[in-house]
């Protein structure tokens, strides 16, 4: 049986893998035209790595779904749907993986016991799954708010910067990681994805899984915001000839990590944010 969450995860993995394959194909095609039929060795390696990763990601999603179905085989369909709805909220929270596993195990134990007693899942956690999930996260000290959103998005930006600089040094065959600069427009796009696109997709995904279809549309809006971000960049490109600020913006290159210590600070900051989030969530219990 497939729950809404399982369907969503499988569809997302296929859609994202499809986009990655398409973009990689376009990238290789454009590179061939630009470089007159020759691909740099770095470009070929990156393309193969990206396609392999996309394939592995889809495989992992399907394999996880299969082993999860095996683990939850004793749960009735309606209980399974409720468990998945709660776990969607828990899974996207700042809880540690061990805590997420513990919650799933505990809920499974409770659900199996209630199922054995002939009860309905609504009589166990109430009609409003979202409210139960929020109560549960609150008990663990998780209070999603603007600060948590800003911290998570900042973590994503830092992660992208570290990876993308590595990618660019490989793609352009630059010997040193610390010499690969980035276009400002790329930085803008990563910030846009981290602060707008991903939070909207996550919010919409959670809402859709618990059956809130209107809020679930935010997942689609999230994908649209990505296109809007790309559209903004393309718009700037279109007006670059007429507007000096636009051509200046597009021409700017930033070398984010010039020295190893800068990279070390970025990584330390990403971990620091992780610990800050853990500390913040324990604070109200002290």
């Amino acid at each position, binding site marked *: 049986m497939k729950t809404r969450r399982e369907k969503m995860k499988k569809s997302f993995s296929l859609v994202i893998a499809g986009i990655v394959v398409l973009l990689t194909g376009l990238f290789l095609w454009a590179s061939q035209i630009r470089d007159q039929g020759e691909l740099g060795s770095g470009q070929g390696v990156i393309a193969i790595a990206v396609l392999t990763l996309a394939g592995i990601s889809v495989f992992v999603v399907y394999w996880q779904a299969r082993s999860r179905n095996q683990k939850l085989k*004793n749960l009735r369909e309606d209980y399974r749907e409720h468990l998945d709805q709660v776990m969607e909220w828990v899974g996207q929270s700042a809880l540690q993986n061990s805590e997420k596993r513990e919650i799933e*195990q*505990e*809920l*499974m*134990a*409770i659900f*199996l*016991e*209630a199922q*054995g007693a002939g009860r309905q899942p609504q*009589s*166990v*956690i*109430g009609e409003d799954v979202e409210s*139960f999930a929020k*109560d*549960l996260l*609150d*008990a*663990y*000290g998780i209070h999603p708010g603007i600060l948590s959103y800003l911290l998570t998005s900042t973590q994503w930006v830092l992660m992208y910067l570290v990876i993308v600089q590595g990618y660019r040094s490989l793609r352009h065959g630059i010997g040193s990681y610390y010499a690969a600069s980035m276009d400002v427009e790329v930085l803008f796009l990563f910030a846009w994805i981290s602060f707008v696109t991903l939070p909207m997709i996550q919010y919409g995904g959670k809402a859709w899984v618990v059956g809130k279809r209107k809020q679930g549309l935010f997942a689609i809006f999230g994908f649209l915001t990505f296109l809007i971000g790309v559209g903004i960049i393309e718009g700037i490109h279109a007006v670059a000839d007429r507007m000096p600020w636009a051509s200046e913006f597009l021409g700017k290159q930033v070398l984010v990590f010039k020295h190893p210590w800068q990279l070390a600070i970025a990584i330390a900051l990403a971990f620091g944010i992780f610990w800050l989030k853990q500390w913040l969530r324990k604070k109200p*219990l002290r």
Partner: protein
Amino acid sequence: MAKQTQMLKGVLEGCILEIVSQEETYGYAVCEQLIQAGFSHINEGIVYPILIRLEKKGWLQAEKRPSPYGPKRKYYQLTEMGKRERMEFILRWTETSRRVNQILERRISDENT
């Protein structure tokens, strides 16, 4: 119903401490005991987050043990801090209920005269 549940949340912490003080027990059984005591609208969805909160506060400690249904159950028992908190709850509740009863009795007698 919702108002009643909200009002009860604080009281339930005390009730759960009392139930756990009598014997080591697990979430589902705590809920059953509350329902038997008359809290008929209580469900595991209300009790489970409270148990987690009490464990995080250090008032309960949990141990996982096998259950006949498959996944391990968490059995709870009171910590020293939990025992002190239970005593404080009993004192607070006795005092509060005495005051509330006084007010209600006065009102009832006023209405009767």
